[in-house]
């Protein structure tokens, strides 16, 4: 069934492989075009529930901003919802890379600092 063939561009690494996925009953049953395991996993996820890591910033009490990320990919459809929550977070310096600023910011992901601020 042709409507169940999906063509994707892998976003796992800069190679950007063109991947073809055969989907049945909402599940990937065959992945081709990928050059690695990460590509296969990406494709399997992408046809079921696309997920993305959010990278953004968080305001500090001193007025500064510090860069942050979700420690795992979150559902793409929830990205703006989670951004709303992140925008309300105010952290206080000092912040170090890897500090968890919020335990669960959504979809079970933590919000983690990706830079240092004194």
């Amino acid at each position: 069934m042709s409507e169940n063939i999906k063509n994707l561009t892998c976003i796992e690494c800069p190679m950007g492989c063109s991947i073809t996925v055969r989907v049945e009953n909402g599940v990937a049953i065959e992945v081709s075009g990928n050059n690695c395991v990460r590509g296969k996993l990406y494709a399997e996820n992408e046809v079921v529930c696309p997920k993305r890591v959010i990278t953004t910033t968080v305001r500090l009490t001193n007025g500064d901003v510090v860069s942050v990320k979700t420690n795992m990919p979150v559902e793409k459809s929830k990205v703006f919802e989670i951004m709303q929550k992140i925008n309300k977070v105010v952290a206080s310096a000092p912040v170090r890379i890897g500090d968890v600023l919020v335990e669960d910011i959504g979809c079970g992901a933590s919000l983690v600092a990706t830079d240092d601020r004194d």
Partner: protein
Amino acid sequence: MFDVIVIGGGVIGGLTLRELSKYNLNCALVEAQNDVAIGQSRANSGIVHAGYDAKEGSLKAKFNVLGNKMMPRVAKELGVKYRNNGSLVVAFTNEDLVTLQTLKARGETNGVEGLTILSKDELRAKEPNISDNALGALYAPTGGIICPYELTIASIGNAMDNGAKLYTNFKVSEIVKNQDGFTVVSEKGQALDCKVIINASGLSCDKIANMVGDYSFKMGARKGEYILLDKENSNFVSHTLFFTPTKAGKGILVTQTVDNNILLGPTSTEQADGSTVTSESGLAFVIQKVKEMVKNPPLFNTITSFAGVRAYCDRHDFIIEKSSACENFINLAGIESPGLTSAPAIAEYVVKELIGSLLPLEEKADFNPERAPDYFFKNLTNEEKTQLILKNPLYGKIVCRCEEITEGEIVRAIHENPPARDLDAVKRRTRASMGRCQGGFCQPRIVEILARELGVDMTEVTKSGEGSELVWGKTK
């Protein structure tokens, strides 16, 4: 009550204000925009013309030749870069060669010194990149170059140092005649009283004159588009190269600037509203003409293109006179090219002759003709640099990497006369962000410095006054 109010912060108003500040007169300059030197004086060719162009006996001819002679001293006093690079009017046809003779004769009548006709080979020796089609040139050794906005800013700054007042964002909406003189009213409702008005408002000269019932002339405007090349190519030409003028006008020029860029342009199109929008056809025309003038112009090193406005009046000569409507209102209108060159001479004439006939001129004992040293840090010796850094560590922080401009210079521009209040004002005074990256790296840093020094949030910092805010709020 001011003795004199100058309307318009261009080079004519600026140098006139400075001339006024030599005397015990209470003077002010009102400018509609957020900074001075933002109209015609912001973007023109910056040429100090020799004086062979203007018709014999015209005011243009008279003031051009006088101004040309005065410019080196004025520039030196004000700490403004000026270079006597000489100019060449290049002939490409036999008809042009005949015109060169006419120009030479006219120049000599006007009192221009040193004019000579160069052969093809002599021309090539002076300008190796000249087109193979060039047949000869008129060489004017007294031609020079200057930065028009730098001269304007410095003259207003020097006048302020000597007691003159500056009102920016003062757009004149009404002039009320009264017993002692005038009340000048701004759009925002500010009112200033004065005895005499000098109308040096460029493109707005007719509108301002109309406010006192003077309808004797009308202004028009032409747009001139330019292309600026990186200073890496500064030696591509050394003189200012003009085409031989035809009935269609002077055409475009190719010149070095005092900041060692190469400037190409301007076009000349009617633009009554004074808009400075560049056009595809205009820039293409500049490129086409430049390629006729010189071989292989380094256009790949273009750093920016821009347009300036050139106001003219329907009398087609300078108007430098008391208004027929009221004698204590002086019009300095239609000061088109060679207006920049003529400016110091016009200023001197206006104050000595015209103001002198209306108000007593008493020289100020403590007038200081020199502006507080407006040095470019990068031009100092290492010892001087270190001395300055030890006094003020901000001079040790390079903000604009392309032009090597320090935080010390930027802070100085914000606090010195006339104070820089926006990003473009900082740029015009310091050259920060005028280099090849055009502010890519340093703009956020300059905005931070402006916010800090002016005591405002970054959202309030503008590019060129209200409505040109650079950032629109915090991210969170």
